[in-house]
């Protein structure tokens, strides 16, 4: 969806493939969405649907072998990242576009202090002197709400708690004030209370720095709390996409409906939880046509044959389902 300003990030029909001993997997099969400056876009889906692969593809960090980006365009500030030479990509990573990961405890190199790591990245991207870099590093830690920023510079990762590690990883990502932050399940490995803190931190940073955030998660609650827009992903494709309020109140794709129904709600009386029947498809042999059709209550003949097209049913609401044609 284009506003008066071009979107910060526009992904068009991204396809990523993995070649393994067990066969070929199209982990991403035509993923499209866009992200505006200062907006938090949620990317939701079950484990294995391709969310992390999307993040890696955007950063061009897909391990090759066995993976490869085989199609589509990734327009970042108007430039197609997939067409850039690796060197140019190296300038963008970390400086204009950064990522934080799921396992904060293992995301930091155990042989370096936090300060060493931060300084190294700062010096690499901005070429300032070591003493200055340390000052910037402390500043970045302060930005992410680390208690005792200066002291933390001297600590090794194994001396930090999970929450502090995640803050450090965030600091590392933001040290050059990028425009886009990709957060791949940043709170999944953390305690609930810390989760809340980190999420609040991300929202703060968005406001303060005008960050665009791609928040990847499997937790719909997080999406409801934090995101402006959301993209629902299933088996390597986006099935529904739009403003959070719109989608949560009027879910249209059967998968989204299933996801929302599966959430227990306080207001309603207790009844059996509604689970979506069936299991995630085997991506080595994905179902033909619409990938969701084997589990769909409303499946029709055509669903087995053709991939559904993306249809805009309302402003800020796109669905990929034949029901809405």
């Amino acid at each position, binding site marked *: 969806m284009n506003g008066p300003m071009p979107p910060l990030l526009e992904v068009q029909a991204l396809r990523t493939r993995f070649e393994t001993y067990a066969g070929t997997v199209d982990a991403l099969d035509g993923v499209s969405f866009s992200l505006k400056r200062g907006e938090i876009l949620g990317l939701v889906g079950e484990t294995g649907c391709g969310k992390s692969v999307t993040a890696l593809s955007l950063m061009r960090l897909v391990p090759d072998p066995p993976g490869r980006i085989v199609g589509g365009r990734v327009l970042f500030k108007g430039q197609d990242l997939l067409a850039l030479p690796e060197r140019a990509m190296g300038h963008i*990573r*970390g400086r204009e576009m950064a*990522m934080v990961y799921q396992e904060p405890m293992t*995301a930091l190199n155990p042989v370096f*202090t936090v300060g060493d790591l931060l300084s190294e990245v700062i010096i*690499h991207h901005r070429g300032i002197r070591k003493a200055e870099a340390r000052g910037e590093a402390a500043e970045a830690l302060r930005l992410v709400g680390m208690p005792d920023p200066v002291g933390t510079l001297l600590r090794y990762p194994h001396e930090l708690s999970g929450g502090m590690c995640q803050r450090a990883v965030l600091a590392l990502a933001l040290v050059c004030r990028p425009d886009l932050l990709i957060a791949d399940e940043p709170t999944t490995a953390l305690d609930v209370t810390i989760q809340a803190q980190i999420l609040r931190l991300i929202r703060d940073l968005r406001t303060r720095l005008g960050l665009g955030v791609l928040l990847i998660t499997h937790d719909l609650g997080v999406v409801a709390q934090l995101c402006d827009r959301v993209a629902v992903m299933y088996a390597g494709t986006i099935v529904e996409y739009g403003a959070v309020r719109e989608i949560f109140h009027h879910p249209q794709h059967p998968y989204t409906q299933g996801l929302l129904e599966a959430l227990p709600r306080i207001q309603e009386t207790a009844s059996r939880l509604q689970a979506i029947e069936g299991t995630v498809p085997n991506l080595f042999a994905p179902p033909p046509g619409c990938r969701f059709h084997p589990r769909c209550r409303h499946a029709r003949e055509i669903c087995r044959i053709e991939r559904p097209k993306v249809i805009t049913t309302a402003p800020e609401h796109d669905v990929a389902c034949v029901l809405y044609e």
Partner: protein
Amino acid sequence: MRFWSYLLQRLGFVVPILFLVTVIVFVISHVIPGDPAHVIAGMYASEAQVHTLRQEFGLDRPLWEQYWISFRRMVAGDLGTSLYTKRPVLSDLITYFPATLELTTFAMLLAIVFGIPLGVISARRTNQAADQATRFSSLAGLSMPAFWVGLLLQILLGFSWGLLPTRGRVDSLVTLDHPIRQLTGIYLFDTLVTGNWAGFKDVAGHILMPGVVLALGPLGLIVRMTRSSLLDVLREEYIKTARGAGLPENRVIYRHALRNALIPTVTVIGSMYGFLLGGSFVVESVFDWPGIGLWGVNAILNLDFPAIIGATLLYSLLRIVCNIVVDLSYYFLDPQIKLAGKYEG
């Protein structure tokens, strides 16, 4: 924990182990059938002479008494006299050890200097031609019997093409004109430091073949170890972080990954060093290198008890020292140890 307490902790194990070692060696060497008194006396000695000899060397006392005597002497610093060379064992050790030390260190350095870069290359280009070739040659290096390679090289480089000398450490003709000042016993060092250029060339020529042969095994191991631990490290999350932060690939590999990957490699290097010191005798015997390897083997074959015990003690001590040095290097490489309370070995 503090460095010195760490060191002390490691040293505490040395004594009991050495003790056990002496017991084992003593037992083994005395299970040998055959009478060393006869061996020393020679074929033509009379019974009376053999008997006197036996008494002289204390070989007629009960076993445990013999052990106790030699143990006491050992602790006092006297390792006895070699039954074969008739010299004090200790002085024999001091004479021959530097040669082995020089050879082993040379070989080890060769292996490290060539092995680690090859391992890195192999890991970066997994399954491509360079990788397969490196893996194959490192395995080949490990599969070749050292003595065979030594002999082949002798034939090719020494006898056929006359490029390199095949025996010994120095050419006596050269040392007559340019005598080597024995500062440390390590000839390469001694000749360099005293400006003895001719001597240096000669020594270098002599050490090259045995050094290369001895280095083959460790080279293969180091390449494999580096490759596999680097591959392991490259799978870790923090490498993704480093790449995601935009750091160039070379820096990621050499600074971020290698430091972690070297930790297990250092262990291998350390134990390899100890192994080489003990296993060099084969190469030494092929090249007539006057080191303790050769000396030790002769001791065993001649049933020279004091020498055997002395040699084994030395080897074991060296092994243990290597282990400790490796442990200490962990202290510097792995921050978790510096800060931890206890290190679990």
